[in-house]
Structures are given as structure tokens and as C-alpha cells.
């Protein structure tokens, strides 16, 4: 689906109301609502040429060349034949037009695909099959299961109970879980299946209106180039002015007297002549503004983008997904990234929770030991436990420790109680489509993992009703009466259920954060507590998410009394919450500890290594996650973002602006104790925007900030405080952030730091940040991800980021910079020779070179070698790039192409052009051929200088190029050969006989290039142009070697590629840090589960259409997953008040919905 790329239609006047009659086409047509055809394409065959040309000439370079063309047809001004401009211009326009045409054809194709999907529409009391594009506002539509929807719809009625429909919005936001919409009760009883009223059509759909203006991202080099092109225009005007003034004085002093041989029709008006000369020189010197620059840059970026698409090392076989460069114009920026903003879930982690270890009654399970008692590393090949004794087991569940199954089989009461608790105490919904095939819909993957674990160990949660839970305990069906759910919330950090077993025993089962549970344990458990604490520490040290489990048998009498009070409290109007809270506290005490679970939030492969590499490359990584602080911190440690050896990890969790400011200040003082309190290193840019320079600190620090504090920290008065502190830290983790805040953080860094940012994420909640950052990367692999759709690059695994940046990005940047430097050099050199010649030809805008040479110089003689360089060049290969991530740093500092580098180029060109003009001048002005004939005639001189020029720039290119493939060699030598071939052809008798006036240089090549002094001059100029460069570079390498020089030297010494870095063993820490609490879900599910509202039908899996309940509920919102994580169900950021959290969104099918 590619219609997201389109530009939204211009905003119409806001429509306040919309009148329509259902199923009355004539009436609705009178309002002229838009049709439902989606059109993202720009052209049709007839409009293509004029529209495309119009667009292309809006580009300043093309317009400039059109202007030049106009100048060239004015005979008084024309100093060059028209073809010198027309040929390149036509070529450039053709290439661009071809690219635009292919793009548009693709858009047409996807439009057609969307528009031609079929749908049933009620017309004339009959359902007719129509294309979606023919649907009109007011039509009544019948949708069936698993149909695509391409309009905003109002749900009238559904075949499902309670008139619910389940919609999947994968194409919108990548969320594959189902969302629920309910029809208005008035219309609810109308029909069968889903019937809907088309509400907004085509471009007026909410999506199309909300898709935002896709801002066109430009790289910093683009921006620099625009500035430079302006400078060049200025410089061009400057040169032309000098020459025009020169012409004025020449006319006054010399020209007026030279009238004998050169009379002027228009008399001898020196000022007018100078004016014309100015424009004539504008034509001649136009090559300083190289028209082919933009096209070449596009081609290079395209080529380098293809390398990304083609890279097998960024191909992920499991999803069959190669990396994709969705934007082909940002490549070199990949080599300059300073800040990486990453999402957590789905990006760093797989969003798969696995039940990894547990501690039951003081015994730890989950590790595998060999016969010597040595703990074994668990790999893919480790033998897994056989669950065949349990027909209801989930075949995908893996566990490696056999002793736990043994314990279950031995009917260890504690173990049984442990799994019974897991099977009872949760809010998961079960779905059993076929006998024995269970699917769990869990609100958080952690819960799903725990229930699945219980299921496999023989305590199968099978179904629930509002007041009972059915489980199969070791093959025996048992139904527990569910008496109460003491729901989870963020303060309680625990949940409990009170159930009555079939035997009639009352029991309270509780699971929660270990610290919380420990406070509520009975004293008799103290010994067990110690052992379990040890286990918990061990689990935490491995980065696992832990929960403590406890139970308590209840006294019937006490419970009845408690229940009574509970009922009273829950019907009470004021203080309901705190009263309930008290009741919960009261009953959840003197618990008996059962054990603890450890869940692994599985990291994606290679994440810690990647993060380590990136941080070696001086890239700062900020994780922006919707998760809770503990979870995020935990992941931070397990993926190497936060390290034990860091000097300090600051935690900012203040609840008032003052606290937050205080905490930020304290953090900064401890990082940099001797700080000039008032001194902020900054420099002011235009428009009053300040740039904050990087501040140096000793040591490595980390910062964790939570959502509330972040909201304060992002306020105008504190954002600088926050930014300074955060940027001094090596890594930053922001927890509980909303999608909007993600974007705000990115914008904040973009605003004050002159640094390139990259955002990487996989879900709809990352879209804003992906769009805000300079470069957005989407994690692809599953169908239709909004993050991917709005990203610039996409690949399947986070670890590919290091290859994208350290290899592709670095090379692209290197190549682009080399290209630009060389391109400016060759064109400036070419042009400046004209400038010097101006002083010797009466400032008459006489060209130095043959006009054909001018036409073909950029197109044929020098195009391919430099293109070859910018497609193939690499300083060191990818293995070395990984070995020395520091090679990435020059890109961040903009070292290879900046104003300074450009200025150096211009100076170098100036030198070369002087050599190229004055050496031939001095060598030829008073000499003759070896047969006494002329050699200092204009044509021979032109041939000589142009040959010298071509040799000089080719040798310079050879010097720039550090990677000579056969193709490069062929291009370089081929271009030189081509030059001679073309020159000899054009100066041949045959060409002259065909068109005498077009090829006046006949015989020049033959007559000059057989002269030894011509060749000696060529040799002299070539060597003289190149020697200072070689000297300078050599001395520079010796005196101030850059990291590149050092690595290249090392490579040379090694002569062979190094062995790949040894695979890091799993990072184990013996940390006392208590791990995060394995709950990441929202309050309120307990009520839901017991309300029965949901239980009238089993949840439907697979996709369904999506529809909005008109405009009454919030439609598509980019909140996505994190909305569900809101602890309290209220918006986390005051700025996004309009986003309602639709509860019930969070039921995620455990089963992969893609099947």
C-alpha cells in the first residue's frame, strides 16, 4: 500500500456538518462529495510532459539553464553555440523525467489495485458488487469477514453479538491485534453481517486528511549545497563583473583604437559593451554552476541505495525480508548520525516473553547443568523438555530443565500450587476453536507467557466465565469459582484472585513485584524469602523480569464478611477507590511465598553488540519507550545501553517541575563538578535559535527519565536544562513516553544540536518520531507496518543498523563527499581557465576551448570516472569498518565536505587553472612547430589547454580514488581514450566535409598532437597540478594522521582481513540490581473479565475490516501500543488530551495473526 506517500490535498474550508441520506444516491450527489477513487498519481499521459517540465523548471538549476539558453540566442551576447547548453539540459531533463515517469507508473498501479477492490453495495434494494472507487457517500455497504476497507465507514449493524466488529489496522499502524467497534444501538438491530454507511470518501477520509504533509527530507549536504550554489552564483557574478569592468577599460584603452580592423556597428560605447560582456561571461562561466551536479548526485544516491537493497548481510531469512532503502535521497546522511532514537518493544526486543526460569519453594529451575555440575549455555541445540504427557501443551513452548517436569510429575504440592496460581491468577482470555487447540489472548505478553508456561506444565487454563475459571489440572478438568479479582494497578503492583476450589477451599492467589509481595508475607516464610531473594537477584542479574508469587488460604467466615464490606465499598460513591484500596491491603497480608518467576523479554539478536559498536562510533543512543521505568531500565542493562561500569546512572522521576529541574541540575553537577554555573556553550544561529555545543565530561553516565518528568523537562523553560544534561550522558532512556513526546524529544535535539538524528522503531507509536528525525528507520518483516511505510529505510532486525550506518552510511558519505569535492574541483578548474584567458583576449568572452569540448566535458569526458568513484570507492572494507567503528566519527564532524573543504577546492582549482593556462601560454607564445609553422594559433592552443585540463583532472581523480576496481580503471582509461577518439573524429576531414561550419577545428589534432613540445607541456602541467597535492597529503598523513590513515595503514600491514570479532558470550552480571517487575498492563481488566461483557463470543482471530463508529469515537490515532500501557488509562501527556484511550484494544492474540 503506497498511498501514504501522497501529499494531502490542500486543506479545504472546515466542514462543520455533512448532510446525507443513506442509500439515496441522487440526493447525496447534489452535495458533490468526493468520489471514493484514490488518486495519488500526479500525471496522466497527456499532462505528463507539460506538468513535468513545469515542475522541473521550478528547480533553480534548470531554470538557470533555461535562462542561459535565452541569453545564448541573443546574438550580441551569445558567446557559445546553443548546443553547449541544450545538449546537457535535454539530457538532464530526460533523465529526471524518466525517473518521475517510473515513479508515477508505480503510483498508478497501486491506485488501481486499491480502487478496483470489490465491495457489496446496496443499490436498488439489491446488493451489487462494485469497485471501491465507485462507492459514493451515503451508500450502504455490506462487508464480510476479512475484507479490505478503503473508506471511512459508519457501522450500522453487525452479525456479531452486541453489534461488535473487530478491525485490524495493519495497513494504518502496523498493529495486528484486533480493535473493537460497536454499532449505535439505534441501528444495531438492522441486518446481518456488517453493514456500513460510507461516510467520507477518497481524499476526504480521515486517513487522507490526517496523513500529514509528508515533509520532504533533505540531507545536510543538500542544504549545504544550496548555500554553496548561492555562493557560486555570487562568485559567478563577481567574476563576470571583474571581466566586464576589464572589458570597459579595454574598450576605452585598446578597443577604441583597434576599430580599424574591428569596427562596431553600435559604435564604441564602452559601458554598453561591458554590459553585454557581463552576460556573455555569464554564459561562458556557467559551468561553475554545474547542471549535471544534481543529476549526478541523484544517480549516486540511487546507486548507493541499491547497495542497501542488495545487501545479503541485511537480509533476514526468517521473514524473507531484505533491507529496503525507501528513500533514495538521504544516503550520505547515514554516515553522519550522531543520535539514534530507538523504540524498545519490537525494535530492541522481540516482544516475545518467554518463561525462562523460576524458583519454587527455594529451588531454582531453568538452568541446565552437565554431569560435572557446570552450568551449560543454553543454545538452539540444547535438548528441550518433552511435554508429550500433556495433550494440551503448546508445542512452541520451550523449556530446558527436566527437573521441573519431574517435580510436576512427582506431584510436589508446592510446584502444583505454583502452576495453579499461574493458571488462575491472570486476566487472559482463552479461545478454543477446535477441541484441544487453545489460543490465549493476553493483555501483555508477560501474562501470556506465564499462563502458557502453566499450561505446558499441566495446569491448562481452558476457559473462563465472569464467575468461574476452568482449568485442566494434570488432565483433570476442574472449575474454580472466581470470587474476586483484586486488580492490578500501578501503585499496587500486584494482582490477586480469590477462588473457591471444587473442594470448596477458599484461596487467595497473588502475584506481583517482589518488593511489594515481600512486605506482605507471613513471618514463617523468612527463610524461604532469603533463598528466593538470592534467586531473584540471580534472575535480575541476567536481565530477566521477575514476579513473586504468594498465596493464602482464607477463612470462609472472614471472607464473607470481607466480601460484604467490599460490596459496600464498591457501591459507595465517594472515596470508592481508597476504600477498596484499604480492603485489598487488608486481605493481601500474611501471604505464603510460593516462589518467583523469571521471564525473559527476548532481545533481538545482536542488540547488545550493535549498541556497543554504535557507542564506540560515538553515536548516542536514546531509548524512547512506552514501558515502565523498571522494565526500560532492565532492558537498558541487558542490551548494554546502561552498564555496571558506568560512573553513574541518573534517574529523573520528579513529579513537579522543581523536582525535575533539581534532579537534572544535580546530575549535571556530578558529571561536571567544576562548571561555570552561568556559562552555557552555545552559539546563536539566525532566527535566534541557539546551538548547544557538546560538553565534555569525564566518565560515562546514563540517564533514565520517566514520562511525567519528561513532560516537564520538555517544557520551554526546562528543555535546555534537560538537553544539556541528557547530551552529556552516553545513553538516555525515556520511559512511558507518548508518541508525541517521542517526536518532541527528537525535535528538541534537532533544534539545539547541529547533529543528524535517526529514529528507529516498528510500531505506529514510532511514526511521529520516525517522521521527525532526519532519518527514520522502520523495522520490517511483518505485514503492512505504518512505521515502515513512513520510514526512509527499513530492515528486519535492529542489528542491521550497525551495517547500515557503519558500512553503507559511512561509504555513502565518503563517496558523496569525494564526489562533490572532485566535481567542484573539475568544474571550477575548467571554468577559471576562461577567466584567465579573458585578460588576454580583450575580455571578449572568447572561450579557451573548442565548443564541442565544452559540451562534452561534463557529459562524456569526465562523467563516468567520477561516477565510478562515487559508486565503488571504499577506504577500507566492511570488516575493517566494523573493527574500527571510530572511522565513523569524521562523518559526524562533517569533516569531508564542509564550507572549508569547498573553499579549499576552489583554491585548489584556482591554482590548477593558473597552471593550466599560464604554462601553455608561456610554453607556446613565442614558439613554432618543428617544421616552422604556427603552433600558437587559437585552435592549437585550445586543443593544448583542453588536453592539459583533461589530463590534470583525470590524474587528480586517480589520486582521489582509493579503490580501483576493473570498472574504475576502465572508466578512467576509457574516458581518456574516448576523448582522443572523439577529438580526432570531430577534427577529421569527414566531419568537416559533412558540416563545414560545425567542425572548424579540422586538422588541429593531427597538426598539434604530433609535436614533442605539446606533449612536454602536457606532462609539465599534469605534474605541476598534482605534485603539490601529493606533497601536501603525504606530509599531512605523516604529521597529522587521521583515523582513516591509521586504519588504512593497518590494513596494509595486515594484508588480510582480520578474523571477525569473537562472538560475545552472553553478558552476565552479578548485579544486586533488582529487576523490573514483569507487568506491563493497564488497570481495569479485572472488571472487564468479570463483567461478562466480552464473553458472549470467543474472540475472533484473523483480519477483519475496520470501521469507525462514525465520528463519535476517536478513529485512527497513532497511539497504538503505548496507549494501552497507560497505567491509569488517562492520557499521559497533557498535550494529547484529544486522544482517548480505547480500552479493550490490548487483547493481543498470542497466535501469530499472520497465519
Amino acid at each position, binding site marked *: 500500500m503506497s498511498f501514504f506517500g501522497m501529499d494531502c490535498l490542500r486543506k479545504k474550508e472546515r466542514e462543520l456538518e455533512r448532510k446525507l441520506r443513506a442509500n439515496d444516491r441522487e440526493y447525496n450527489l447534489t452535495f458533490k462529495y468526493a468520489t471514493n477513487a484514490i488518486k495519488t498519481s500526479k500525471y496522466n499521459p497527456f499532462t505528463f510532459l507539460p506538468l513535468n517540465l513545469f515542475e522541473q523548471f521550478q528547480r533553480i538549476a534548470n531554470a538557470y539553464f533555461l535562462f542561459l539558453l535565452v541569453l545564448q540566442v541573443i546574438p550580441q551576447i551569445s558567446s557559445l553555440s546553443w548546443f553547449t547548453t541544450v545538449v546537457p539540459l535535454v539530457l538532464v531533463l530526460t533523465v529526471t523525467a524518466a525517473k518521475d515517469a517510473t515513479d508515477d507508473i508505480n503510483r498508478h498501479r497501486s491506485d488501481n489495485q486499491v480502487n478496483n477492490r470489490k465491495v457489496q453495495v446496496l443499490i436498488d434494494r439489491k446488493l451489487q458488487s462494485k469497485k471501491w472507487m465507485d462507492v459514493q457517500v451515503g451508500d450502504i455497504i455490506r462487508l464480510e469477514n476479512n475484507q479490505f476497507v478503503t473508506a471511512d465507514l459508519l457501522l450500522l449493524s453487525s452479525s456479531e453479538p452486541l453489534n461488535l466488529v473487530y478491525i485490524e489496522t495493519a495497513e494504518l499502524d502496523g498493529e495486528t491485534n484486533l480493535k473493537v467497534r460497536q454499532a449505535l444501538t439505534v441501528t444495531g438491530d438492522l441486518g446481518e453481517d456488517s453493514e456500513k454507511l460510507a461516510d467520507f470518501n477518497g481524499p476526504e477520509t480521515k486517513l487522507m486528511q490526517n496523513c500529514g504533509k509528508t515533509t520532504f527530507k533533505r540531507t545536510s549536504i543538500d542544504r549545504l549545497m544550496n548555500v554553496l550554489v548561492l555562493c557560486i552564483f555570487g562568485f559567478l557574478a563577481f567574476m563576470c563583473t571583474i571581466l566586464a569592468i576589464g572589458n570597459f577599460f579595454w574598450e576605452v584603452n585598446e578597443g577604441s583604437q583597434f576599430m580599424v580592423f*574591428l569596427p562596431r556597428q553600435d559604435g564604441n560605447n564602452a559601458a554598453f559593451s561591458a554590459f553585454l560582456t557581463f552576460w556573455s561571461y555569464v554564459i561562458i562561466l556557467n559551468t561553475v554552476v554545474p547542471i549535471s551536479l544534481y543529476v549526478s548526485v541523484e544517480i549516486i544516491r540511487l546507486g548507493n541505495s541499491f547497495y542497501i537493497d542488495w545487501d545479503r548481510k541485511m537480509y533476514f531469512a526468517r521473514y524473507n525480508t531484505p533491507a529496503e532503502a525507501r528513500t533514495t535521497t538521504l544516503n550520505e546522511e547515514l554516515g553522519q548520525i550522531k543520535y539514534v532514537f530507538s523504540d524498545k518493544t519490537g525494535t530492541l526486543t522481540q516482544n516475545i516473553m518467554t518463561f525462562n526460569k523460576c524458583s519454587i519453594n527455594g529451588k531454582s529451575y531453568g538452568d541446565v547443568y552437565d554431569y560435572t555440575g557446570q552450568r551449560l549455555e543454553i543454545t538452539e541445540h540444547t535438548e528441550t523438555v518433552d511435554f508429550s504427557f500433556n495433550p494440551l501443551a503448546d508445542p512452541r513452548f520451550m523449556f530446558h530443565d527436566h527437573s521441573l517436569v519431574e517435580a510436576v510429575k512427582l506431584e510436589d504440592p508446592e510446584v502444583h500450587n505454583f502452576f495453579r496460581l499461574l493458571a488462575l491468577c491472570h486476566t487472559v482470555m482463552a479461545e478454543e476453536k477446535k477441541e484441544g487447540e487453545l489460543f490465549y489472548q493476553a493483555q501483555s505478553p508477560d501474562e501470556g507467557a506465564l499462563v502458557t508456561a502453566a499450561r505446558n506444565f499441566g495446569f491448562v487454563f481452558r476457559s473462563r466465565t465472569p464467575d468461574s475459571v476452568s482449568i485442566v489440572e494434570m488432565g483433570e478438568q476442574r472449575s474454580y469459582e472466581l470470587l474476586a479479582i483484586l486488580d492490578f494497578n500501578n501503585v499496587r503492583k500486584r494482582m490477586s484472585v480469590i477462588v473457591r476450589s471444587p473442594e470448596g477451599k477458599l484461596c487467595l492467589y497473588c502475584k506481583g513485584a517482589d518488593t511489594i509481595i515481600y512486605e506482605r508475607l507471613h513471618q514463617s516464610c523468612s527463610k524461604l524469602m532469603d533463598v528466593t531473594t538470592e534467586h531473584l537477584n540471580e534472575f535480575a542479574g541476567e536481565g530477566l523480569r521477575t514476579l513473586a508469587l504468594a498465596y493464602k488460604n482464607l477463612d470462609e467466615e472472614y471472607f464473607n464478611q470481607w466480601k460484604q464490606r467490599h460490596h459496600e465499598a464498591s457501591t459507595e460513591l465517594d472515596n470508592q477507590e481508597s476504600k477498596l484500596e484499604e480492603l485489598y491491603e487488608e486481605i493481601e497480608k500474611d501471604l505464603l511465598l510460593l516462589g518467583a518467576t523469571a521471564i525473559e523479554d527476548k532481545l533481538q539478536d545482536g542488540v547488545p553488540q550493535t549498541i556497543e559498536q554504535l557507542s564506540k562510533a560515538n553515536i548516542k543512543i536514546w531509548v524512547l519507550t512506552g514501558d515502565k521505568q523498571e522494565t526500560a531500565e532492565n532492558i537498558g542493562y541487558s542490551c548494554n545501553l546502561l552498564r555496571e561500569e558506568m560512573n553513574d546512572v541518573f534517574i529523573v522521576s520528579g513529579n513537579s517541575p522543581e523536582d525535575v529541574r533539581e534532579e537534572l541540575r544535580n546530575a549535571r553537577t556530578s558529571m561536571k563538578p567544576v562548571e561555570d554555573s552561568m556559562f552555557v556553550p552555545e552559539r546563536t544561529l539566525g532566527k535566534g535559535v541557539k546551538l548547544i555545543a557538546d560538553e565534555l565530561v569525564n566518565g560515562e553516565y546514563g540517564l533514565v527519565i520517566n514520562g511525567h518528568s519528561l513532560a516537564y523537562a520538555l517544557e520551554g523553560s526546562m528543555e535546555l536544562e534537560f538537553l544539556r544534561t541528557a547530551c552529556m550522558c552516553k545513553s538516555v532512556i525515556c520511559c512511558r513516553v507518548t508518541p508525541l513526546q517521542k517526536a518532541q524529544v527528537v525535535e528538541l535535539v534537532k533544534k539545539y544540536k547541529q547533529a543528524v538524528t535517526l529514529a528507529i522503531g516498528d510500531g505506529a507509536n514510532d511514526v511521529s518520531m520516525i517522521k521527525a528525525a532526519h532519518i527514520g528507520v522502520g523495522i520490517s518483516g511483518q505485514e503492512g507496518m505504518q512505521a515502515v511505510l513512513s520510514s526512509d529505510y527499513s530492515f528486519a532486525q535492529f542489528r542491521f543498523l550497525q551495517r547500515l550506518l557503519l558500512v553503507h552510511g559511512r561509504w555513502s558519505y565518503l563517496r558523496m563527499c569525494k564526489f562533490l569535492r572532485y566535481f567542484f574541483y573539475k568544474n571550477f578548474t575548467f571554468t577559471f581557465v576562461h577567466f584567465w584567458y579573458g585578460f588576454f583576449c580583450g575580455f*571578449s568572452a572568447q572561450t579557451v576551448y573548442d565548443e564541442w569540448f565544452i559540451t562534452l566535458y561534463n557529459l562524456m569526458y569526465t562523467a563516468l570516472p567520477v561516477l565510478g568513484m562515487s559508486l565503488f570507492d571504499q577506504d577500507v572494507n566492511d570488516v575493517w569498518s566494523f573493527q574500527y567503528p571510530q572511522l565513523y566519527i569524521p562523518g559526524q564532524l562533517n569533516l569531508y565536505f564542509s564550507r572549508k573543504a569547498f573553499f579549499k577546492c576552489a583554491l585548489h582549482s584556482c591554482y590548477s587553472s593558473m597552471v593550466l593556462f599560464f604554462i601553455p601560454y608561456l610554453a607556446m607564445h*613565442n614558439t613554432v612547430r618543428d617544421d616552422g609553422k604556427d603552433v600558437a*594559433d587559437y585552435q*592549437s592552443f585550445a586543443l593544448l589547454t583542453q588536453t592539459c585540463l583533461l589530463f590534470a583532472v583525470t590524474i587528480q581523480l586517480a589520486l582521489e580514488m582509493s579503490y580501483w*576496481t576493473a570498472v574504475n580503471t576502465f572508466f578512467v582509461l576509457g574516458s581518456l581514450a574516448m576523448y582522443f577518439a572523439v577529438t580526432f573524429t570531430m577534427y577529421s576531414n569527414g566531419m568537416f566535409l559533412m558540416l563545414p561550419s560545425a567542425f572548424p577545428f579540422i*586538422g588541429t589534432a593531427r597538426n598539434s598532437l604530433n*609535436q*614533442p613540445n605539446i606533449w612536454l607541456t602536457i606532462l*609539465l602541467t599534469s605534474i605541476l597540478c598534482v605534485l603539490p597535492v601529493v606533497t601536501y597529503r603525504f606530509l599531512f598523513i605523516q604529521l597529522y594522521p587521521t583515523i582513516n590513515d591509521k586504519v588504512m595503514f593497518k590494513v596494509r600491514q595486515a594484508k588480510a582481513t582480520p578474523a571477525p570479532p569473537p562472538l560475545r558470550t552472553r553478558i552476565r552480571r552479578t548485579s544486586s540490581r533488582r529487576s523490573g517487575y514483569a507487568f506491563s498492563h493497564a488497570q481495569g481488566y479485572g472488571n472487564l473479565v468479570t463483567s461478562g461483557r466480552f464473553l458472549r463470543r470467543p474472540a475472533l482471530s484473523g483480519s477483519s475490516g475496520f470501521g469507525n463508529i462514525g465520528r463519535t469515537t476517536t478513529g485512527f490515532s497513532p497511539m497504538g501500543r503505548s496507549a494501552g500501557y497507560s497505567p491509569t488509562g488517562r492520557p499521559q501527556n497533557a498535550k494529547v488530551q484529544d486522544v482517548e484511550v480505547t480500552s479493550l484494544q490490548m487483547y493481543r492474540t498470542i497466535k501469530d495473526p499472520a497465519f
Partner: protein
Amino acid sequence: MGKEEQELANRPDNTAFTQQRLPAWQPMLSAGIVIPGFVLIGLAFIGIGVALFITSRSIQVLEFDYTGVEQNSPCFNCTGQKVLNCVCNLDFSIDRPFTGTVFFYYGLSNYFQNFRKYSVSKDDSQLYGDITYFKSPSVTCSPYDYDSNNQPIVPCGSIANSMFNDTFKLNNINGSKVDLVPLDGKGIAWWTDYNIKYRNPSITPLKNAFNNTVKPIFWSKPAYELDTTDPANNGFINQDFLVWMRRAALPNFRKLYRRIDKGLPIGNYSLAISYNYPVLSFNGRKKVVFSNVSWMGGKNEFLGIAYLVIGSMCVFMSIVMLIVYAKFKFPEED
């Protein structure tokens, strides 16, 4: 197997090109290449420079300015306003014999043959002998395309119009005996100009081709009378005309006038100049040059000196580099 292939359907091709593993040569500016390279280039340049310098020194050049600006100049008399058919004699002596073929050039300075409007002022098709362009010369020839009677000018344009028209006769004065030194004007233009680029219309007599055209305004005789004695040197393929039409690149230039095949022995000479060409109005200068040539063409000391200087600089820089390399070589361990 088939399933596996299906699963890897999107896997990129494993070629050296797509994986950016093309074999390549990676040269580096290492000391082992740069320093010996500099020494070699330096020595080679010094060698070439010495050869060029010596060769250039061996070439003899004799140059006389005959513009007649100075009072004592023999042609001072001819510079007056209304002097017609003025002939002046330039006397000189040669005390070292010119060996080999001696070339006789005329030179002009401060003369802008490379001025754009001047240099486009000709019609290549006309000069190629295309009779249709005789009737309608190219507009680039303006204002020398039509005369005041609207008759087309052939050959048109400023270049042709301003053709150099001083003529010279060289006499060897041996006591009272005056010998005319034979000057050879054949083959002084480029072969391609004479045989291909410039053609007379294939109409005999040549004069008829020029019907209804007029001669260039400054010319004393029409093109078909440039050399009435030799049809192969007449019209557009007159050698002097061809030499003039090959315009100079720089404002000071010289053009080949004649060849003296037998060289110039020691003795006194007198050059009889028929002084026609006006240059004083624009501070121009006229001169005659006698020179012989070598394998490297005419005398030019610049090239030899430049080679010597650059060669020495290379050697010098190689020493500097060697010192720097020995002293500051960056540490190998990192």
C-alpha cells in the same frame, strides 16, 4: 528444497558487485611510493630540462622591430599619414651563420586576433568554396558581409578584411653585389587548411565565381588575383591568406612569411619592406623574425627552465619528505 527456495525468494544475489566485494587495487600514498617517485620524477625532469635548455640555446633567432615608432627606425618615414607604397630598407648583418632551413616570420603585437567578435567574423562555408555563400555571406561576417552597395563581400568578415599586406624582399649585400635571397612561400600553411578546409569554387576561370561580389574593403586586389602566377596559390588557397586566417591565440603573435631553404650565411643583409599595414593607431608593433628550428620547435627557454626548476623542486621535496617521514612517522600501534 522448493519450499526453502520460496522462503528465500527475496534474498539478494550474492555477486561481488551487489555485495561490494569487487576485487580492487588500493594504492596508498605511502613513503615507499611517494619518496622514490619524487626522486625519479625529479631526475627525469632535470634530464628533460637540460636537453630542452641546450636545444633551445642552439636555436638562432634574429628579430627586428620595424614599426617605425622611433625616429631612428628605418621605417619612420612610412608612418606618416598619407604615405602610399612606402618602401623602407632594414639593414642588418649576420655574424654567425643560420644553419638549416631558416624561417622568416612577421610578428604583430597588441593585435587581438582572439577577440571574440573578430574571430567569429568569417564564413567557413564560403571559404570552403561553396558558391551559395558567395551570394549571402554569414551574418557573423558583419559588418564586412556587404559593402555600401549591398554587394556581398568575398571573402567576408573582419579576419579576411584585415589580412596582413606588408611584403618583404631580402637582399644579401656582399660589397656592392646585391643578391636577392630566394624566399620560398610554398607549404607554409597547414596541409589540412590548404587541401581541405579552404577550397576555391570549381569554376574556371576563378574570376567568374566572384561575379557580383566585391573584394574586401581593405584589400588592394580581389582574392582571385592574390597570386596570378600560380593557380595553386591563388584565391582562397593562397598560402599567405591561409596563414593569416589561422588566427592567433594571443595578442602578441608571429606568423610564417617565407622559408629560406639554404640558410643564411654570414654577411650583410638588407630587408626591403613595402610598408602597408597600419598598426600605430592601436599601439601595435610589427616585427620580422628569422629563426631556425629544432626537434622541439622554435626557441623557447621557458620550457627547459620550467622542467629544471620543477625537477629540482621534486628532488628537494623528496628530501624534506624523507626527513619528515623519518622523524614524525606516526606510531604504528593504535
